[in-house]
């Protein structure tokens, strides 16, 4: 196998993909939004330098101890105990990325492995795994998490991430399985088998590289649902109380009865959740077009 040729080919494909991506309006908007939020998340690492007044969780302004509107000191105002809303927003961005990306990553790792095993091995294993996947897909994830919270008490953020991943892998696995089934028929797999490669080797060395682009595509959609589920959980009061996520912010607005009086507090977190979700979704759709030639604007053949 000519490695150099492979690499060049890969770069060509990436360049072509980028060209298509650039033409896509949705992709551009999505990418721009995501960069803005990424910058916000990064900025949250620097807020400690502003001093203890601005800590999102414990920041106490000596002069303000109730909700106030935007001012020079506090760009978005303060919440009900005088904490700065803007730093909370930045912190929330960090958490959203963290939760979204890790939950999505774990779920596609799981989903890809299950999908490949299921498609490649077939038979009883396949049926069992897919039945399991169906069952999990049918159940509303938020409600499962709620019930788990009822049984196991307060859930910490990483546990939430893990649980979300465990509930979201079925979607990916179906697609990966379908792709594996197609790949299984290809001659190069036959060749590998004849050459004596073990099943594991075939799966990881030959099938996985071909299946990964699909996995990553669907990762973007996993991110959106992870962010929304975590936010919902926090909103209802069952999130990790030590983390200031956007959902948690909304919980505070709601539970402290400030919904009607404090738009500067109510609006930003909700808008952020929606926009970040939107941006990932748009990115996913744009990437869909890059990877699936059928979706692109077609050329006509006479």
């Amino acid at each position, binding site marked *: 196998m000519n490695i150099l040729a492979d690499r060049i080919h890969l770069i060509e494909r990436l360049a072509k993909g980028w060209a298509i991506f650039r033409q896509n309006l*949705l992709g551009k908007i999505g990418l721009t939004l995501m960069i803005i939020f990424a910058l916000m998340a990064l900025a949250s690492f620097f807020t400690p330098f502003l001093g203890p007044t601005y800590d999102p969780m414990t920041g106490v302004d000596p002069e303000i101890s109730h909700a106030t509107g935007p001012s020079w000191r506090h760009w978005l105002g303060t919440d009900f105990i005088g904490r700065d809303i803007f730093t909370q927003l930045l912190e929330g961005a960090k958490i959203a990325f963290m939760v979204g990306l890790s939950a999505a990553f774990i779920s596609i790792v799981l989903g890809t492995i299950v999908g490949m095993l299921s498609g490649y091995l077939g038979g009883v294993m396949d049926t069992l795994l897919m039945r399991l996947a169906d*069952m999990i*897909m*049918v*159940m*509303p*994830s*938020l*409600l*499962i998490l*709620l*019930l*788990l*919270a*009822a*049984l*196991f*008490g307060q859930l910490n953020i990483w546990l939430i991430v893990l649980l979300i991943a465990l509930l979201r892998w079925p979607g990916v696995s179906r697609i990966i399985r379908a792709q594996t089934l197609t790949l299984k028929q290809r001659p190069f797999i036959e060749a590998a088998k004849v050459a004596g490669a073990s099943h594991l080797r075939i799966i990881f060395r030959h099938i996985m590289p071909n299946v990964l682009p699909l996995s990553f595509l669907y990762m973007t959609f996993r991110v*959106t*649902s992870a962010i*929304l*589920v975590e*936010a*919902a959980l926090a*909103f*209802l*009061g*069952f999130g990790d109380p030590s983390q200031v996520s956007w959902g948690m912010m*909304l919980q505070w*607005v*709601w539970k402290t009865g400030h*919904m*009607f009086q404090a*738009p500067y507090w*109510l609006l930003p*977190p*909700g808008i952020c*959740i*929606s926009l970040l*979700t*939107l941006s990932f*979704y*748009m990115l996913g759709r744009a990437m869909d077009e890059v990877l699936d030639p059928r979706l692109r604007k077609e050329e006509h053949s006479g």
Partner: protein
Amino acid sequence: MEIKKFILRRLLEIAIIFFVILTILFVLFRLAPGDPVARMVDPMWTPEEVEHVISQLGLDQPIWTQYLYYLKNFLSGNFGVSFHYGEPVENIIWDRLPNTILLFTTSTILAALAGVFFGKIAAWRKGRKSDTWMTISALVCHTLFVPWFALMLVWILGYKVGWFPLNGIISPEVWVNENTNFPMKALDVLHHMMLPLMTLFVVQMGSYLLLMRSSMLGTLKEDYIVTARAKGLTEKVVRNHHAARNAALPVITSIGLSLAFSINGGALTETVFTWPGIGKELVFAVGNNDYPLAQACFLLIAAVVLTANLIVDVLYAYLDPRIRY
């Protein structure tokens, strides 16, 4: 008849899945930290009441027997007693179920109809301004954070302009009054339902619009569309009778698939509006450590989701002649 066999087979599948869910729940219940007895028993009760519940639920028995008791109780409708309400759980959930079904079914059907209608138009006008606007709006609606959107509606339409009540399903004054007749009571419920309905409608419609649009775009490339045009049919007939009729089918399947997601939204909406439905009860029960109620609500929702999936499957089989014949 083919459909009867199909329904029976699916019912069997649902029964099995439900059974598995019941078992998993039982296992989790035993695995969870803390005293399982305390979870089902309210500390405020008298010793006799505690005895009664323990023996009913078989909490003092060895595990296997307990499991059997659990199944038996569940199948006979005995879910224990709610701490918070002080009533048997079954009374509560059967009382709340119609409210959830009312809200959820109405919003889903309206959203699906609207989504299919506008998705069809958006696909037909692909590339033009109207399509771009519709698609972007649908995208925004699809990704709205449900509780936040609900709060916004409450704030603007409920609080600021005062058109709609802020929560609940009825205004007690209306119902207590002996002079109010049925239409007025119905109108009152409708009035209260508007905001939660709007919340669910907007968010779901976005999804259905996007789905219908891409389904339609695929359908428009099919050969029978060329045939339809070749026959000299008007564009409107081609669009509605030929293209949309086919494009709508995958959307119906997706109603079933997205049920899990929309039920999440439903529970959140019910909570924000304090709409007395199963979703709201589940959330509140978890908050109140009222495990018997929480468990029952969850199981009921699971049953509803599975049944709804079945209904959607049957509907699809009915609409697509390739499956029926």
